[in-house]
């Protein structure tokens, strides 16, 4: 109970206020995905006519992919705020107060959830404006957004833990840029896995980003296979729980190193 209350205090007392005062962070993070939507949407327009691609237009295929991609791009940077907090004494302030370390992680996850929900909704809107189809209706879209939140949390936990262990901006930038793009390309975000070499499809099966892509796309499509979506969501929730645990443990390692 105490930890929940503390997480709420940090989430509302700090993160939501910061976001409210600097809402541009949400939109700056959207610039890149919008370019991807427009660029790839135009570039690969013909892809959907390739036999084996499946039904629907390419923008319909691409939009859920860009939603997930944006979620992991954005959340892979959350560790940066910890590194900033280390530099200006804010992290020490939290750590010398009787604050549960889990509450620190939870507050960060809640913040990540809010930004991801807003960003995902905006991208879905832009995709729709560009002609994407969402036969799954509102339910499908809500599930797609939920899935984007889960993968964002899993990635945020990774990023936060990494930041606490390395304490270096450069290390986090390096890790994030090396990890995120390959994970995205090996996920089926841009191209149906039916069209890629079979080893890539095999690798993708173990890629959480692929779980999210697939679950999100199925949910947004007509007559979704909810069982499949549910099991992917379960995997993702587990991944998020594991990285949350790791990020919380990382506080201990961080303190031991100081």
């Amino acid at each position: 109970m105490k930890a929940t209350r503390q997480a709420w205090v940090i989430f509302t007392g700090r993160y939501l206020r910061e976001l409210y005062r600097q809402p541009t962070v949400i939109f700056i993070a959207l610039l890149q995905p919008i370019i991807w939507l427009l660029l790839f949407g135009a570039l690969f327009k013909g892809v959907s006519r390739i036999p084996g691609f499946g039904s629907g237009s390419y923008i319909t295929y691409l939009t859920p992919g860009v939603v997930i991609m944006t979620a992991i791009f954005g959340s892979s940077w959350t560790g940066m705020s910890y590194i900033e907090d280390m530099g200006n004494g804010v992290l020490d302030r939290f750590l010398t107060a009787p604050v549960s370390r889990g509450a620190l992680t939870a507050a960060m996850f809640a913040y990540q959830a809010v930004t991801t929900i807003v960003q995902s909704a905006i991208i879905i809107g832009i995709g729709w404006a560009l002609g994407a189809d969402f036969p799954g209706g509102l339910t499908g879209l809500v599930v797609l957004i939920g899935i984007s939140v889960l993968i964002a949390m899993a990635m945020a936990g990774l990023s936060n833990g990494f930041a606490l262990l390395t304490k270096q901006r450069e290390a986090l930038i390096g890790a994030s840029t090396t990890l995120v793009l390959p994970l995205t390309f090996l996920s089926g975000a841009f191209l149906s896995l039916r069209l890629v070499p079979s080893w890539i499809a095999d690798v993708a099966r173990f890629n959480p980003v692929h779980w999210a892509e697939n679950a999100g796309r199925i949910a947004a499509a007509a007559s979704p296979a909810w069982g499949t979506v549910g099991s992917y969501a379960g995997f993702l929730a587990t991944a998020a729980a594991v990285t949350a645990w790791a990020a919380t443990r990382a506080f201990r390692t961080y303190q031991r190193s100081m």
Partner: protein
Amino acid sequence: MVDEAADAIVAQDLSKIYKGAARGSTAVRALDGLSFRVQPGTVYALLGPNGAGKTTTMRILTTLSKPDRGQATIAGIDVLARPGRARSVIGAVSQHSGAVGRLTGEENLLMQGGLHGMSGRKLRRRVADLLDLFGLAEASKRQTRTYSGGMRRRLDVATVLVHRPAALFLDEPTTGLDPQARADLWSVLADLVAAGTTILVTTHYLEEADQHAAKIAIVDRGRMVAEGTADELKAGLRGDSIVLELDGPEGAERAEKVLVEVPEVTASSVNGSVVRARVADGRRALPAVLSGLEAVRLGVRSVTVARPSLDDVYLHHSGRSFRQAEGMSAA
């Protein structure tokens, strides 16, 4: 065994070695058996150059770090065994601010109170009182990134006082502040101490420790080299200081070389264009010192024979002038 009764802060035999982070870098012994006790409602100052172990001591006592050896209690609570409980009775201000820049001063305090389980009208009243006490009421609705250095420092102290901690830990609270801001901060701290708060403080300013600390510990290379009230420390030094002012730093350096050769001089240090020399008897040593300088035709601007200062105490115990040691570690 740590005595839990009388002392507000007890550090016993604290030792810590930092293993080199990078491969091939050597381990650094930050603390080497440091022990001290602080009585409730007093200011205790840790003096020493950068790297002496002051900040490490602060980090251990505020639960941020663990020693390899030793024990610590605050208000009777074992810091190492029960860090969670210790956190509820301490207020810690690190060298960096700790204030969230995009929150207002008031919001920073409210959040801190919330983390300590405070809420509602009681918290609001406490926050308003503190902002008043620290002269921040007017700026309380402004984001703290717009604050001046002095305002931010006052806010930092106010923030960690929300839950009425028994002990306050201030790591170089006045570094970088102008004299007025330093005086302002110390005047509030004096009120807190009068009301019963215990303060452990590190500082670069010897005069501050001299004026405000009930007890001073001089720490060098992770060990305590001297402890006592400012007067005790000075009285413990027999002899006098000869303080020479020269035309510039260059002259001072040359003068010190001369002084080292004078038999009566036991220790010496340079600070800018001022040279201090420790001698057993100032009046007797003075002629020898002056004739030594005369021989190399060094013009002296002024000469004073003075009772020992804290800098002399530092020089005596560590073999280095405080400011020399500062300069060395800063380089």
